[in-house]
């Protein structure tokens, strides 16, 4: 399972990467915003995306929309891990086709729970 973690804060990328490693996911790459993530996804063989919302350059919600528009990527599961907690944003993300939505600050148990749910649905 190859995972791309997209967040503009390197510490948050590191936290998510460490948590994923504890859950057994060791093949994790990083990108610092949507515009660097998108070409990585298009040219790579990623299976899963974890993205922040609020980033300079391309924001997470726009990255999600681009992924859903792309024929090659549109079925890729995308999880948002973000401090954005406005209801209309959560609804907008759901409408754009997000597979999971986690608000920061979050716990390792929350991350595991959401991941399990996403992979359950995919099987």
């Amino acid at each position, binding site marked *: 399972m190859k995972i791309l973690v997209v967040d503009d804060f390197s510490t948050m990328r590191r*936290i998510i990467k460490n948590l994923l490693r504890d859950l057994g996911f060791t093949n994790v790459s990083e990108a610092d915003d949507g515009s660097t993530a998108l070409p990585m996804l298009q040219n790579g063989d990623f299976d899963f995306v974890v993205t922040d*919302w609020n980033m300079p350059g391309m924001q997470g919600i726009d990255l999600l929309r681009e992924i859903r528009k792309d024929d090659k990527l549109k079925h890729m599961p995308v999880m948002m891990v973000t401090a954005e907690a406005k209801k209309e944003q959560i609804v907008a993300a759901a409408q754009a086709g997000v597979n999971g939505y986690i608000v920061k600050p979050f716990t390792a148990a929350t991350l595991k729970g959401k991941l399990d749910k996403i992979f359950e649905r995919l099987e």
Partner: protein
Amino acid sequence: MSEETNPQISLEDAKALVEALEAGDNASANMILREVTSKEHGELFGEVGKLTRQLHDSLSNFQLDPKIANLASDDIPDAKERLNYVMKVTEDAANKTMDAIDTGLPLTDKINSDIVKLKPEWDKLMQRQIELGEFKSLCYSINEFMESAETDSAKIHAIMTEILLAQDFQDLTGQVIKRVIELVKEVEESLIHLLTVFGEPNQNTANEAKKPVDNNGAEGPIIDAETREDAVSNQDEVDDLLSSLGF
């Protein structure tokens, strides 16, 4: 102004003007014109005079505080530096902590796996089913384990202390942020002073300016989620909202 509804020259004045011009009496014509326009000018001059007095009074009422100049030239750039510092310090603290954990976890894993290795022989000893040769090798293994556990636990203690010390960012950044908040308060007070002296804020435009520019835009961490209707305050509320929508 009522320029469009009320003529700037009365009918009588206009007739007198035409008569004077027809008679070739330029002196009278000029006088009539001057009389008509001087009324308008008088009002304008009066208005300008009033405004000038108001401006003068405002300026003398508003004692230009040197603090305001300092705010713009020193304090605001200083606040930016401080906030950059907060970002740097918190990033360092997070990395320091995670570095410590990266070195600490293998040590605890090693202690655990050593115990798992010793366990079968030890169980035999407890059940008095151990042979002399096994007992001897168990003694050596336990001796080795005690030595490595002693140094490893001391290392773990040092790592814990490192993690503890890394939390000093809370104190450092807290102080810095407090000062920035004070500065923001000062700027706010100066702006309010400026507004009360120089103008009556238009209620409508003030309200319009308050509206968020982009409703779908990102806002960052919500610091007052409990009191806000439009935001969720925890993961459970996110899940409830999504499941209520059928996701």
